[in-house]
């Protein structure tokens, strides 16, 4: 729920590759705030790289005003500037019990119907805190517009007692397979020191495990695109048991223990 160096680098790369919908309606599960490991001056200069010319000076001055006045809630305000810079959303809706006054106080353990769909749904460090995690992914599915993008960034290794769950790579690939999502990007990350490694497939992580490259506290970020044809959410069957994984992945399932 924070914009850390990971989110900063990842979303900037995605923006540079035109992989994110600009001007979209965005749903945040967990309202983002500014973590502080990225110098806010870097964001200031990125305003000039990404915000349309007509509003970039105004955006820059707004960011300047936020950091100068240091009022309560400034970390949420900086995060809004971050999204404004890289996404220029038409509107942002957040669900968060601990966010700003504008955030919707809704329990993600239960079914939610916001009455509309979003071109971009963000689940950055939220699902692991919700016990009924299947419902969270159903809520995301239901609220993503056909062809819309869903970004998940969740703990993979370590993060002891950070939330209820850590998520394995198979979770994302099986979720995608069951629901016809396209895996646009998958990235292994560590926060300190900052590390981002692109995963070209579910087998990439196997190689990293064999090379002893999994850090004590790591996360996996996955960018998924929902199919254009709308369909009901389907709970995935694990790929290994569905005989839907490669021989390499199946062998790893037996040996990596």
């Amino acid at each position: 729920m924070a914009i850390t160096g990971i989110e900063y680098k990842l979303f900037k790369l995605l923006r540079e590759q035109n992989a994110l919908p600009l001007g979209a309606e965005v749903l945040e599960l967990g309202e983002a705030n500014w973590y502080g490991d990225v110098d806010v001056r870097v964001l200031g200069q990125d305003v000039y790289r990404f915000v349309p010319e007509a509003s970039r000076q105004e955006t820059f001055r707004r960011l300047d005003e936020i950091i100068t006045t240091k009022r309560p809630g400034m970390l949420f305000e900086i995060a809004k500037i971050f999204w404004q810079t890289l996404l220029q959303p038409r509107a942002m809706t957040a669900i968060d019990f601990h966010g700003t006054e504008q955030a919707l106080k809704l329990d993600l353990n239960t079914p939610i119907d916001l009455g509309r769909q979003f071109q971009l749904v963000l689940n950055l460090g939220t699902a692991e805190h919700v016990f009924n995690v299947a419902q969270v992914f159903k809520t995301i599915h239901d609220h993503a517009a056909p062809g819309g993008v869903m970004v998940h960034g969740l703990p993979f290794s370590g993060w002891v007692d950070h939330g209820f769950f850590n998520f394995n790579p198979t979770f994302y690939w099986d979720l995608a397979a069951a629901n016809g999502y396209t895996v646009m990007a998958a990235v292994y990350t560590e926060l300190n020191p900052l590390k981002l490694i692109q995963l070209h497939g579910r087998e990439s992580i196997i190689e990293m495990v064999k090379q002893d490259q999994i850090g004590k506290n790591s996360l996996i970020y996955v960018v998924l695109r929902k199919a254009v044809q709308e369909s009901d959410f389907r709970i995935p069957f694990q790929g290994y048991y569905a005989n839907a994984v490669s021989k390499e992945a199946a062998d790893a399932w037996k040996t990596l223990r």
Partner: protein
Amino acid sequence: MANPTPALQAYQHKVLQMRLSSAIDFPAHVHLETMAQCNAACDFCPYPGLVRKGTVMDDALIAKVVNDLADIPRLHTFQLSPFKVNEPFLDKRLFDLLDEFTVRLPNASLTLTTNASPITFDKLQRLSGFSNIGYLWISFNDHRQAEYESAMQLPYRRTLERLQMIHKAKAEGWLPLRVVLSRVGDGTATDLAFRQWVEMNFPLFSASIFPRGEWIGQVATARTSPPPEIGCVRWFDVSITATGVVAHCCMDGAAAYPIGNVRFEHVLEIYNKPEFRQLRAATMIRQEVDPCRSCSFT
């Protein structure tokens, strides 16, 4: 058009990057000549022929300029040099001004270029109290006494003593700022000899060889090559003279190509005048505009 060297390509890349930064709206570097006076008469500098020689910018105008600069968002960091064609340490107000800049303009990195001869021990001690000084750039130009005195019209011995005092302060650890000894180079073996002399005698200083400039026609020089076909980082500067007139750039020593006057206009208004902004926003090579087409500055 000949292929630019890697150094010129890097320079052009920097110009294009600055276009995509807050420097498009706010200056990257501000020169503020508080007093048009120098104790040297260097043969590579337009000062000896300067019409405004002796002009002192009044306190009220300096305060007005500081107010203007305080309108620059804190998020934008910029370089502030309290000199233009002058010796900043001759202005008795220098340290009071540095104090004011420090308080009012916390996003400014202060930089000083000097011939070092007026820097006394007391001044050096005061200077050491500022943590926001980017560098102290000493225009020394020649390590040989006769050539130094001929080029700069200053006593070599005194300057050398100043350099030794400054170097000792660095060695003792109470002058943390970066010190550079620079030379206006002539492309001869003397340039290398100068660099070696600095390394040998003042190892805690850096050495810099700067090509001799013609100051857009204001200083006679033998040009060896045509101006490069690239943009200019000085399009992102504001160069304020002691009269209040804003010169086209730092190379316009005489302010022969003025772009405004801070006495009557806001600094940011001058910086963002359409014709000057056009240089930053859309001009690819200096040959497209006057007076830049004849300038070799890089």
